[in-house]
């Protein structure tokens, strides 16, 4: 099995020069130019400077040329290159973000969609540019009652970090309601931040808008300090990633779990409650931040298999070899740019594989994916109906009543 990379701190405010002085930087110099990174990269064929060439240019003193190219805008931060690099070079964690930051700085013009998103996130605390006062609406509408930190005024066990897609988008809200239902079923003592919450910043971080990321981190850290809780749980794979890998640089030291990890841990209590039979053939798509980056391959699968009636089938590319939905590293807001460059949408590549399995359901565990795959299914022909569901939605459905 491919080794799990430890989420040690990557230097805050690192530049190419400072990184090369660290052990991680020295690692970069050990590259053997094998091309594994370029070969495995879902967009490798569209990059003039895939990681291998970046490193060689760096070693030869031509890194400026790389910064001027828009090559790295194609990186969807999927961690594929990093988890397969035979030298264990932490490409997607350390080298690529720095190159991306410089790429953004050096572009005569940033793709408009991305530009807008970054601005929205800075101004409103969410990439869609929705009002921050509406963030909590999902939790109060339709009779759902979700405890909010500022209101209950007491310490809780679990602080549930909801995140943007799961707060504002219709399909994301389904996901959140499912999580709330499961928390209640398990008797977990939890609360959310409500309107006080802002985007955790993983997307900004992965496009390496380091300034934006720091603004969001500073903000959220202040809010965390206001309340007492034992751990943070989030259903958003990207927030989970940010908390595990980047936030510790800013003093974050709470235990953090993704909902799939938490529910898998609670499976002994949860399983007897999963009484409703769901006769679906399901294929599971590994989210990059959970699978390759955190080694959570078995947990979501265990959860699915705990649901009576579910049959699990695998896509050609799974686990460490999974293909990204294309939403990471800013990819979520670069579809137009990718299209202009003649690049296939990765979500389309992925649903083709899912369709080929003959499954009824594509199970996911990251809110981006619902949106991306449902969109892709609109354009990719398929004979048999196929739907997209988050693992937690399926769990909630199986709970019965």
């Amino acid at each position, binding site marked *: *099995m*491919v*080794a799990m990379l430890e989420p040690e701190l990557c230097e805050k405010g690192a530049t190419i020069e400072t990184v090369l002085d660290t052990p991680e930087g020295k690692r970069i110099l050990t590259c*053997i*130019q*094998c*091309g*594994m*990174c*370029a*070969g*495995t990269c879902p967009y*490798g*064929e569209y990059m003039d400077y*895939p990681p*291998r*060439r970046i490193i060689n240019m760096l070693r030869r003193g031509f890194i400026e040329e790389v910064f001027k190219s828009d090559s790295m805008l194609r990186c969807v931060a999927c961690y594929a290159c990093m*988890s*397969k*690099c*035979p*030298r*264990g070079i932490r490409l997607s964690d350390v080298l690529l973000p720095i190159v991306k930051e410089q790429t953004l700085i050096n572009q005569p013009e940033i793709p408009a969609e991305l530009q807008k998103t970054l601005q929205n996130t800075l101004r409103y605390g969410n990439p869609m540019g929705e009002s921050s006062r509406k963030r909590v609406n999902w939790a109060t509408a339709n009779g759902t009652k979700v405890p909010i930190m500022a209101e209950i005024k007491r310490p809780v066990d679990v602080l549930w970090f909801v995140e943007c897609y799961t707060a504002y988008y219709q399909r994301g809200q389904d996901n959140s309601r499912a999580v709330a239902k499961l928390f209640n079923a398990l008797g977990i003592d939890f609360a959310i931040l409500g309107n006080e919450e802002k985007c955790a910043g993983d997307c900004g971080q992965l496009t390496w808008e380091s300034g934006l990321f720091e603004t969001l981190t500073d903000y959220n850290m202040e809010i965390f300090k206001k309340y007492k809780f034992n751990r943070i749980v989030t259903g958003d794979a990207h927030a989970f990633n940010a908390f595990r890998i980047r936030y510790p640089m800013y003093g974050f030291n709470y235990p953090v779990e993704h909902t799939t990890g938490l529910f898998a841990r609670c499976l002994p209590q949860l399983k007897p409650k999963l009484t409703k039979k769901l006769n679906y053939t399901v294929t599971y798509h590994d989210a990059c931040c959970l699978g390759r980056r955190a080694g959570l391959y078995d947990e979501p699968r265990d959860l699915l298999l705990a649901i009576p009636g579910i049959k699990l089938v695998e896509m*050609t*590319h799974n*686990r*460490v*070899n999974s293909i990204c939905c294309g939403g990471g590293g800013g990819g979520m807001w670069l579809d137009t740019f990718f299209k202009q460059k003649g690049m296939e949408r990765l979500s389309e590549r992925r649903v*083709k594989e899912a369709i*080929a399995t003959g499954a009824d359901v594509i199970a996911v565990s990251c809110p981006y994916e619902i949106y991306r795959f449902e969109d892709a299914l609109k354009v990719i022909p398929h004979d048999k109906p196929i739907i997209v569901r988050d693992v937690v939605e399926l769990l909630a459905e199986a709970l019965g009543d």
Partner: protein
Amino acid sequence: MYIPKKHEPVRIGFYICHCGVNIASMVDVKEVAKYVGTLPNVVVSRDYKYMCSDPGQEMIQQDIIENRLNRVVVAACSPMLHEQTFRKATEKAGINPFFFQMVNIREHDAWVHTDRLEATRKAMALARAAIQRVPLHKPLEVKKVAVHPNVLIVGGGIAGIHAALVLANAGKRVYLVERDPTIGGHMAKFDKTFPTLDCAMCVLSPKMAAVGSHPNITLWTYSEVAKVDGYVGNYKVVVRRKPRYVLEDLCTGCQECVEACVYKEPKFRDEFNLGLGKRKPIRLPFPQAIPPVTLIDPETCIELKSGKCKKTCLEACGDRKAIDFKQQEELREILVGTIIVATGYQIFDAKRTPYYGYGVYPNVYNALEVERLINASGPTNGELVMRNGQVPKKVAVIHCVGSRDENTNRWCSRVCCLYSLKLAHLIHERTNAEIVNFYIDMRTPGKGMEEFYNRLSEEGMMLVRGKVADVYPDPTDGTTGRLIVQAEDTLMSRILKIPVDMVVLSVGLEPHPDSDKIRRLFNMSCSSEGWFLERHPKLAPVSTFTDGIFLAGCCQGPKDIPDSVAQAGAAAAECFSLIDKGHIEQEPNTAFVVEKECSGCKSCIPLCPYTAISLLEDKKKAYINEALCKGCGTCVASCPSGSIVQNLFEDAEVFSEIEGLLAPVPV
């Protein structure tokens, strides 16, 4: 021989070595010599370019005579390397070799520090410790222990086979213990070998047969070493012989039993062919197996499982009476003086690189499986047909699978590039298929290897420089199992997606999973990867840290057949060296009880791992049997009345060393 007279003044000679620039570049040797010259008892203090050279040693000897030295201290490399050299030199000049003390300022000082002043101070402190200790040294004598002339060899691959024959041909008695039912190791599975492309079995089977029939070799296959006791020259070894349910002395190898087995067709996974073929419960592992004796697998034999078989095999064997369903495991004890460990390697399990689809896509094979598929005595009689019954038209060979990779094994397995070229050639020869080799770096060191590479390149095989990233089914192909091999061609900076019929994974070599157990059994060390550790990478490549135990072949690290054989010869020669000398000299660092101080408390007795200590019932005093004591010093450290003394490591010697280490130095 110099015997110190009471009250004779101590006269020390101190020598510091430059070791070329190895030491002198980091330690100010002149300063150290000057400082040591000022210390009490020091009569001469010199520095010299190479102390271990003849002139260096002669300098010491001359000083001993001219300056009437009676103690010598040399500051140079590790005592592991040259302590014996200098002891011999002092002895030659007429003083007891144990009046010598060595100071390690190379491995422990010059090579590991970066601040010249600090390194010089350290050298001074270390030298001073020795200068303070050496006056307390006593004259000692080395013990001589006889070396038993028999040799144990563990592992019957090409390395073990070669070592066994070298020793046996010279008249030594050899026990060869092999875990599998036959000797031959990996080489017996190959079709041809690089770089000569000669037939593997043509060279190996005569050697295997020679082992089987050699009067000086006791061959125990299907056996394992269970226990090793003793020390160099005198190892007591227990070997566990697993039951084959066929008696070796009576079986003629006719295989009529196999023919007669109630299973008319072979039905079970054939281990020798890596599961590519089938076998019956009773079988000969392969036609040229040595010993040519069948064996019965208790997991699949009906009689052994339930006692309800018609036993047609037994019937077929008839008067030979070779089959014995009641055979039990046996333990055999042997006495040997030296041991050669030649347990080889195992191939990397390609399931650990899931993106190559091994075990998922039937047309993905590992290299050893392909060796069997192209082997005339293999499961397909040498015809390269795949699991789907087809002959491939296009084949990808992926180098470095599991090797040179932080996620799996970090080392280069050394033989894979070459065997990949070999397999590419052989597959092409058999099938006329188009072959693409994907490599990271083409590594072809060794005699004749680059020429081999050159020759095969001329044949026009396609070579792509790039590590394969992904292998997956061709989406445009429904039934044939065609695969896409995806990699960056790094010389062209282009991503290739090449459709092929068959993928060959050139898996690396790795230590056996039980190497840690074997290492403990023989008291050896392992590198962090699990290869057995040689005593010195350059100067003692087949010795281990345990005297009398030697290494040969791939258990020490990946290598090809020529190198495995060369090591086997070297290990055999090391055994000879000990056997022919007839005895070994033991460090006289044993312990003894100073009777008048012993209170008879008996606390030392249970501590000795070798039960060397007993109580003299009449005197109520502890007594150490010198022949049994190995000189660990554990009892010494624990005696409450301080009445046990360890030669060479006396309390007073250690205390003065501590004092010397911590004394202020002048720079």
